[in-house]
């Protein structure tokens, strides 16, 4: 058992690497990256200046090639893709504290230090300005050429820092460490995810059992029609419809339009605070849970129906057990096995489908954060979301196996 799960954990590593390579490559190959955005911003700024001064020409709006190269260096795009990936993982030295230098002239760098780069017989060496006899090794120097042939020399330090060391990088947009951005928003998404999951399971279990016990009754048939309708509609679409019906002036304005709390939240009593929160939760939770309810209900119903026709149920009746005990203990215990096996994915639920739902309800969770990050090519956030998504899915898989082994004595992993 233990070795099985250890093996599963080890197998998760190549899967993780594969997934992240694919996302890493695709996202970076897509047009509209940060460089192009910077260009556009400069163009816009220039156009504004030109508009006021009235003397701008097209030639002036392009970034000088040297500046572009520095930007590339800043974002790390001067490296080949595989190196970038390894740097991102933290397995390849990342260049930090880059400073362009001119040969033989002192350059002030971080920490108030002055450096001088000199060309020796074997190449370039870095010296502390106060002691130019022995080269120092704490700083490295790159000897490259610009596209126009002029020397491109810069000093830098390196470090191994990437997602494996817990460094998710800095958001291009927010200029903040990604980890901080996620830390702020994760609890919000988890709240909605967990509540949505619980609602989906409670409703699905209840409905599924009732439908199985009243198989082919009017209630069963009508609820099936309703479930198929729900199943055919994405949660965010239903959310948008509900918002229009219940939260705008067009029909009934009963519930808040979005967000987590009203503007006067801080001034409320504790009781009113809870009510206020609940009012904000109703519609998003509905949107979160509908996706699961339909399929879980049918799974529950079919599972229970199937088990009720099993031989051991007849045995249980033949033993003189009461119908309640036969259904709720003998048949139910077997029927929840397929549902329990899915429960491991609870930890992915706050990611799945939360993109657009959080957008529709204006919830500041990581779904909305990543959606915005994708649109603005904020790579560090997109990659961080990929890492979280992939790892939780892999972990969810393993947890599911574990739960399955817990609830079904016939299953023992080796």
């Amino acid at each position, binding site marked *: 058992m233990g070795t099985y799960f250890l093996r599963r954990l080890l197998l998760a590593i190549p899967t993780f690497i594969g997934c992240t390579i694919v996302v890493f490559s695709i996202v970076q190959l897509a047009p509209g990256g940060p460089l192009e955005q910077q260009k556009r911003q400069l163009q816009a700024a220039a156009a504004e200046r030109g508009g006021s001064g009235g003397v701008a020409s097209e030639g002036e709006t392009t970034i000088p090639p040297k500046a572009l190269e520095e930007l590339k260096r800043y974002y790390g795009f001067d490296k080949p893709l595989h190196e970038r990936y390894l740097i991102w993982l933290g397995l390849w030295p990342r260049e930090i504290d880059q400073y362009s230098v001119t040969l033989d002239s002192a350059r002030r760098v971080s920490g108030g230090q002055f450096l001088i780069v000199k060309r020796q017989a074997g190449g370039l060496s870095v010296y502390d300005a106060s002691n130019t006899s022995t080269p120092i090794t704490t700083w490295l120097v790159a000897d490259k050429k610009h596209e126009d042939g002029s020397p491109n020399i810069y000093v830098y330090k390196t470090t191994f820092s990437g997602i494996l060391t817990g460094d998710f990088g800095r958001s291009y947009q927010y200029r903040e460490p990604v980890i901080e951005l996620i830390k702020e928003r994760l609890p919000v998404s988890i709240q909605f995810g967990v509540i949505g999951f619980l609602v989906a399971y409670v409703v699905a279990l209840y409905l599924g059992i009732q439908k199985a016990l009243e198989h082919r009754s009017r209630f069963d048939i009508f609820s099936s029609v309703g479930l198929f309708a729900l199943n055919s509609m994405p949660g965010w679409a239903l959310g948008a419809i509900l918002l229009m019906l219940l939260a705008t002036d067009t029909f009934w304005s009963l519930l808040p339009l979005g967000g987590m709390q009203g503007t006067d939240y801080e001034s409320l009593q504790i009781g009113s605070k809870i009510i206020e929160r609940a009012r904000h939760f109703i519609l998003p939770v509905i949107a979160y849970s509908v996706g699961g309810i339909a399929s879980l209900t049918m799974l529950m119903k079919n599972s229970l129906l199937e088990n009720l026709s099993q031989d051991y149920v007849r045995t249980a009746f033949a033993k*003189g057990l009461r119908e309640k005990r036969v259904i709720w203990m003998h048949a139910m215990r077997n029927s929840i096995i397929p549902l329990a096996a899915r429960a491991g994915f609870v930890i992915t639920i706050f990611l799945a489908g939360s993109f657009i739902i959080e957008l529709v309800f204006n919830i500041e969770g990581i779904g909305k954060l990543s959606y915005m990050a994708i649109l603005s090519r904020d790579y560090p956030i997109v990659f961080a979301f990929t890492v979280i998504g992939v790892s939780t899915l892999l972990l969810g898989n393993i947890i599911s196996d574990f739960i399955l082994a817990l609830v079904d004595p*016939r299953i023992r992993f080796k």
Partner: protein
Amino acid sequence: MAQETLVEVRDLKTYFNIEGTWAKAVDGVSFDIYKGEVLGIVGESGSGKSVTALSLMKLIPDPPGRIMGGEIRFKGRDIAQLSYEDMYSIRGREIAMIFQEPMTSLNPVFKVGMQISEVIQTHFKVDRAEADKRAVDMLRQVGIPDPEKRFNEYPHQFSGGMRQRVMIAIALACNPSILIADEPTTALDVTIQAQILELMLDLKQRREEAAIVLITHDLAVVAEMCHRVIVMYGGKIQEVASVQDLFAAPRHPYTRGLMASIPRPATPGSAREPLKAIPGNVPSIMNLPTGCKFCTRCEVKVAQCDTVEPPLAEIVPGHFVRCHLVQPEGGAQ
């Protein structure tokens, strides 16, 4: 043997509603079960023997099945009229049942010990520890080695034969008056079959009062185990006799056909005889003949067999036959 009646079944009718028409799975069956006897019910698949047994327990799935008429008198009560509420105290306590499929008859997610002590706790006011103790004792009685350890194991850790032993332990845990065994050995290997039958006989000997109803299509098992035999066909009893009478002088053409279809080794020197089979198939219960139920396959039938159902007549004391050609006092054919 003391012929004290335990159960009186009179004109039992159990029908199944199949797409609007009532299929007469059991159609007017009457018989008694005596204290301490082993009663065999034989017949081919679809003859109504299992439905008869399930009717005694009121375990017919409704819908589609229903007991449409008749009485099942047991200890002053009519089981056919009892509510399901009243049946809870009879099932497992007074009448217990074991089934054909030991592989699927136990709940796969509960330990076998719990499945035995559960029935004890259902019918007796004992605490968990006492019920568990009795359950271990039952496991020992049915010949399961190391019962304390096996008590805590799950059904999938048991072989088919061992599972049937567990089923027997469950059935006998409350010392029922009647044990109904519905083809208990059909799904088992021949050697295991013999062990299970031996176990049943052994346990029977320790319970003088208790009766066993053994449902089977295996005449060899009947010869080995039973005191009396009921032969069923087409939802009706065709012949009832003591096991000695039946094997010595089978009267109904169907019973004779069954006997002839038992394989026998060829006697030395004589030619190998081909194995006789009853021609044709069991008619569908949706479409039974109006006269004798066996007339479609009978080799000796006469004209009236097609139209008139013969009565179940007592031809010698204790020997009943339903056939136009078999007359009382041995005046057959």
